[in-house]
């Protein structure tokens, strides 16, 4: 029982990270058909601003010194600002371009951000401890669960509820959903393209900041590649969920998180190093079964 509960919490907290990442990628894909490979570097960037830029091994807190009540919003805001800046400087000019061109441009942008961080901080992972209160364990029905996992899951639920409310209840949300479904039509009906896209980038970047915070508290290190694995899985989750479906992206994020944790448990010992191979084989299987994704919106089908 306690073991099952532990697995459940592991799966939910990993799934939360993937779901938030997938949401960030799906939001931007929805409005401008861009697969944003710089997303992982937004995550790393919002973590590294916690530290003083130095190439020495020591790590001195910069923004990390702020009290938690300020720290969290500031990091999230930095993620959002970086994301908005990249839309204004790069992606805005590529809106008419081929998706492959946009994708490679986003990769190049991520490359620039990553190497700027490398220049300022060197490639050594840096230990960093913020929000130390989250490291303790709590008892939930007899199982010892890290407080961070509980907080991650709760925070994800709050973020998802808030975002749903935003998308369903506000004018901006309505515009964004309309744009995600049919961008050209939405523009003709008076949705301002720049505003909606900038907003999508802001939310996406904010989510990247939130992911960064969770990962850094979890691992206690700031690593230049920390966003990469989350970003890759999130990207896959977006496609499995059905491109253009935010709901699908979130569900698929949780599914992949759950599958990874479950495989770790059920695979025989000698096959465990190959876990990722099984997860990705599963991804191919799902794609063959549902090429449009699990929750593809009707607008994504090709009309003849």
């Amino acid at each position, binding site marked *: 029982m306690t073991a099952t509960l532990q697995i459940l919490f592991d799966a939910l907290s990993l799934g939360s990270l993937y779901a938030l990442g997938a949401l960030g990628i799906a939001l931007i894909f929805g409005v401008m058909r861009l697969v944003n490979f710089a997303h992982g570097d937004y995550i790393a960037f919002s973590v590294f601003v916690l530290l003083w830029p130095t190439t020495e091994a020591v790590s001195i807190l910069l923004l990390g010194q702020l009290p938690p009540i300020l720290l969290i919003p500031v990091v999230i805001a930095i993620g959002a600002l970086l994301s908005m800046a990249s839309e204004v400087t790069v992606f805005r*000019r590529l809106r008419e371009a*081929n*998706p492959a061109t946009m994708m490679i*441009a986003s990769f*190049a942008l991520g490359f620039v951000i990553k*190497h700027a961080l490398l*220049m300022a901080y060197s490639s050594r992972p840096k230990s960093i401890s913020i929000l130390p209160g989250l490291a303790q364990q709590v008892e939930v029905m007899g199982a010892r669960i890290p407080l961070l996992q509980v907080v991650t899951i709760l925070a994800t639920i709050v973020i998802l509820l808030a975002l749903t409310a935003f998308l369903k209840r506000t004018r901006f949300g309505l515009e964004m959903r309309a744009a995600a479904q049919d961008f050209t039509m939405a523009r003709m009906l008076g949705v301002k393209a720049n505003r909606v896209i900038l907003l999508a980038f802001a939310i996406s970047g904010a989510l990247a900041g939130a992911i960064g915070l969770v990962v850094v508290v979890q691992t206690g290190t700031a690593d230049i590649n920390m966003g990469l694995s989350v970003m890759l899985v999130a990207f*896959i989750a977006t496609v499995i969920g059905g*491109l253009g479906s935010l709901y699908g992206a979130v569900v698929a994020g949780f599914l992949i998180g759950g599958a990874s944790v479950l495989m770790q448990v059920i695979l025989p010992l000698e096959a465990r190093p190959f876990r990722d191979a099984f997860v*990705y084989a599963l991804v191919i299987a799902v794609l063959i079964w549902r090429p449009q994704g699990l929750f593809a919106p009707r607008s994504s089908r090709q009309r003849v």
Partner: protein
Amino acid sequence: MTRAPSVLARTFTTPLLLIALLAAIAVLFFLFGSGAQQRFVVEMLIRVVLVVGIWIFVGNSGIISFGHVGFMCLAAYATAWLTIPPMLKQISLRGLPDFLLTNQFPFWPSAFAAALLPAIFALIIGPILMRLAGIAASIATFAMLAVINTVYSNWSSVTGGTSSIVGIPTHTTLWVALGFSAVAIVIAWLYAISRSGLALRAARDEPIAAQASGVNIERERLIAFVLSAFVCGAAGVLYAHFLGIITPDAFFLTATFVALSMLVVGGMYSLSGAVIGVVVISTIIQILRWLERGVPLGDVTVALPNGSQQIAIGAVMIMILLFRPAGLMGNRELRLSFRRGPQPAPDREVRGKPE
């Protein structure tokens, strides 16, 4: 009315020009370049083979593939298994089957066999993957790459795990690399003007119209996929015999994105774009490396700060894409034409349509 010239006659100048360009670079550096500069040219030629291999599939089918570097990985390890001296293999790769463990095969047959392995792999996995289209197909190829990487990183008894395999004999000279890239270009060109290549491009631009005209999209995609796996495998062989040392991580995300960037910057729908993209980006990388090391200007050495090289490469790539979203070649081919008269219209620029 005169007959229109055959497609062979109309297009054969493209591969000739591209090969001539590469040969000119190779000869120039052979005569005047230092050892390090010649190594740079060899690296560039290996990338030409890889990117041309990727182009055979991506350029003709319009499906971005993240998986082709995985084919390079399969072939590189295969050629390592075949050509490393048995003594070394018995120490580091004990899990290999006996006939590999006790024998050492010569370079050319090994190279061919090793490049054939990814082609066979593509033939097996292709019928599954080729049913997908658009971004789903891209993700599936990425998943394939991740599976290959995970397996090769962890199957220590035959791949050495994440530590590197050493002792691969080095055979990749400037001329071998040039020969491989020339053959790769010719294969790519022949495929592009073949019936299958034409059908696949038709399916890329207008899938429904192509299907209605009797094009079997999955079959044509599979042909391109297998052929491109073979050419990418050849790049893997060259790479292994160039460095003499391989690790699974050399064939993962960074290599994938570098190759795709070269393709897209050059212009992903044209063979010339694939080759020019490699040449231009490799040259820029080399110039920036050189600037970072320092350029003597009179008494002082001016050098870019350490690490700024990669930032500059990223920035240059973004600039090129901002000004030429369809790539440097803009989907056109380099071509000489000998006769006057109406020119064949250049391929229509293909705008991405959301799936």
